[in-house]
């Protein structure tokens, strides 16, 4: 966990003061009843406690849906009652922040999420109000205004999330942006269920919930199950890649450490989340071919690193969805360039990353080198054994302490 600077601690305090100020400024302007404002603010605050898991591992809170509904409900066909909406937002997000703080989760996450969400919601309400006023009289006008405003909010929210995570975790911006935009189904469902409740509120009252919540529950179950299935799958891959280690045919923990290093390098080099997943699986399983060494006659006949890569790739290619991974495992032991030859253009960057990561762990945990000596080994092999760019990335990853380089024993 990164250290929290004084500036980071000051931010939420300034934000909370701002929220209180906005609340009192707006409440003087609006003639919307205080009772209604408090009801919506409470719903908004409590909505923040419910979260929907998204593909990137983010959990998007149900407060999005409530915040989307508020300008539609608190207003009329001409647009939103902006002052009342800002009252609800400031009180609701402040309340939600206090509730989350009491809940005792990672403080930094809560602070930045609260700041980001309240700014985004304010932007959304402002855009929605302006657009629906300009499209007054057109029947689907409110719907179009909502859709455009939601897009504005989505872009702001995801961009802001990528920026704050970039500052903290130092992952490449393009990686984070793609990761965030992969979450669109979850964001989309939250926006829609909010708008649904908002638009049918005046006609249906509480029946709205019956119309809006079941389809949302359907989507929610789908997301929940997807998240579960993803972690199930990851864990299975991890378990299977541990088999040669348990059988004593490969150093204990080598696949875990190689994977951690390979993922860090991949992120450092700006690979997409999809590519990173392949790198992770392939680096976990790069030694799976060693299972074959269980056969005594193979040990007698002798084998090369190329045989192990081939056996491993043969095993993995039995799994229908892992053909990319099988191809990477087949190629990961290739040197960057043999002396006197051109480098092989068919070896992808991912394979070179796995080779370097495996060698780095070998140097530390098998040869007993220090991280500095291991880096020295990598530098000596650069441009022949290892891709120079990858070696550079290993150096950055080690310098910044992004992976644990302490020897196991």
């Amino acid at each position, binding site marked *: 966990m990164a250290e929290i600077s004084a500036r980071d601690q000051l931010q939420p305090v300034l934000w909370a003061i701002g929220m209180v100020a906005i609340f009192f400024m707006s409440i003087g302007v609006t003639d919307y009843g205080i009772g209604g404002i408090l009801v919506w603010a409470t719903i908004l605050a409590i909505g923040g406690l419910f979260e929907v898991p998204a593909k990137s591992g983010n959990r998007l809170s149900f407060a999005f849906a409530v915040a989307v509904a508020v300008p539609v409900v608190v207003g009329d066909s001409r647009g939103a009652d902006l002052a009342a909406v800002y009252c609800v937002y400031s009180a609701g997000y402040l309340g939600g922040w206090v509730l989350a703080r009491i809940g005792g989760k990672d403080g930094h996450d809560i602070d930045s999420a609260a700041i980001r969400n309240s700014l985004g919601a304010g932007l959304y309400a402002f855009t929605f109000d302006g657009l629906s006023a300009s499209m007054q009289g057109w029947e689907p006008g409110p719907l179009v205004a909502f859709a455009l405003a939601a897009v504005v909010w989505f872009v702001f929210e995801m961009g802001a999330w990528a920026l704050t995570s970039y500052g903290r975790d130092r992952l490449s911006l393009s990686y984070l942006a793609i990761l965030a935009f992969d979450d669109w*189904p979850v964001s989309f469902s939250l926006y829609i269920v909010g708008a649904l409740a908002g*638009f049918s509120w005046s006609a249906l009252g509480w029946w709205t919930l019956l119309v809006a919540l079941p389809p949302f529950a359907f989507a929610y179950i*789908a997301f929940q199950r997807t998240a579960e*299935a993803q972690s199930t799958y990851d*864990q299975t891959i991890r378990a299977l890649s541990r088999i040669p280690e348990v059988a004593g045919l490969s150093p204990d923990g080598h696949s875990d450490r190689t994977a951690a290093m390979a993922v860090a390098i991949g992120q450092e080099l700006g690979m997409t989340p999809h590519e990173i997943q392949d790198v992770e699986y392939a680096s976990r399983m790069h030694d799976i071919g060693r299972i074959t060494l269980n056969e005594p006659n193979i040990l007698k006949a002798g084998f090369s690193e190329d045989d192990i890569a081939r056996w491993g790739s043969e095993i993995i290619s039995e799994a229908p969805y892992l053909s990319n991974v099988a191809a990477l495992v087949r190629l990961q032991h290739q040197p960057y360039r043999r002396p006197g030859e051109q480098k092989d253009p068919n070896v992808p960057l991912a394979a070179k990353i796995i080779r370097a990561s495996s060698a780095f762990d070998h140097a530390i945990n098998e040869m007993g080198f220090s991280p500095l000596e291991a880096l020295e080994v990598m530098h000596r092999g650069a441009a022949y054994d290892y891709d120079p760019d990858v070696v550079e990335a290993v150096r950055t990853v080690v310098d910044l302490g992004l992976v644990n380089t302490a020897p196991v024993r």
Partner: protein
Amino acid sequence: MKAQTRARVLLAALYTGVGLGVLLIAALTRSFPPLMPWLPFALVVVYLEWRSFEINDHLISSPSIMAILAAAVAFGPETAALGVGVIALLAPFRPVDFRERRVVVPLVNLGQLVTSAVVAAFVLEPFLPANDEWSNWTVRDFGLAASGAALASLVYNAVNLGSVNLAVRVIYQQRNIRPWSRMGSMVPSSILLGFMGGLVGATYHVEPNVLPLVFGLLVVGYVGIGSYSKLRDAHEGTLRGFIKALEAKDLYTRGHTERVAYFAQLIGEELNYRGTALERLRWAALIHDVGKLAVPGELIRKRGRLDDREYEELQRHAHMVEDILAEVEFLRPMVQIASGHHSRYDGTGYGGTGHTAGEPPSQEACILAVADSFDAMTSTRSYRMALTQHYALQELRSHSGTQFAPEVVDALVRGLARTGERYGSPSMDSDVLARMVAEGRAGVEAHHG
């Protein structure tokens, strides 16, 4: 074969005929809805009908019924039947059917879809206010429309299920499907889907903007379900692939894992395992021998008896499975199953730490033990020929209560009787001969898992 083809063509003709007949009645007595609400509804229904996913071994009742009933309520009583009838006419022709030049199945689908949609619309009609009273729907109208839609949904599913069962019997000549056993489990979901569809359709009359939002939400849910089922397939495919690699090491147990998984599923179905529980059982069966990957190949293939040291080495694999799998959160309940498959019902025998001595192992573990032993006896091993099914079942029964759980053994017998399948060697009908073949075996357990 010829007769079956004729039966299929006849069936397709019959279904299409009934469907078109019902549609004709609707066309003569009702009118067609205006294009504006009709077209978007038609697109949504067709989309939902084209994409159906299997979840946890059973098909969820398709949400297209919800869209069909929403459409019927939105169209109003005078145009509902013809409107949804024509939509149902479009839905069964999926692109994949065109690509693979299938005719019979889409025609059968068409017949049953049109029939059930039109019949459902007829059932719904009395519950709806007349078309010219649309402007002022009351809460009572909402309730009536939604309840009517729930009833119509039940009728829709009953018609659909009845005709599907008939079709499956004729096309696949399968006799042992139980026609109405699935109806019970479908009642709550079809009532709910119908009720929701009715509400959505009624909402259209007061706030048309809501409709695209509801369907947008459904589509997102479908996308989510799609990626979920893809991940599940990938997971199972990976497990199966690795099992194949494992079995490549031992010629004599080839297919063992797949068969054990199949028997475990058979027993599980008899013992009313459903959905995720059944899936978990199958995965546990697939993974139950993964520890063998860590056992030297010569030991697995050894002919004749193992000496004490070798036997100990082999037993270690039960614990190795745990070492590998215990780190995996979701596998933990399975680890207990996988390492428990060598433990005995009365609580003795070797097993992993998931199982305490003196306590009966979990029912999942008992199922695996029976499935494993049954396959071990009915398949040829390096040290003996396959035994007969009769002998294997007798052996299981005689050890039931001590080594095996009685209800699990009974479930296997019932499952085999239900499917009418036979395993093991067909030539040795005499138990005496079987006993002679099995000679040298100390109990059923010595099959080296």
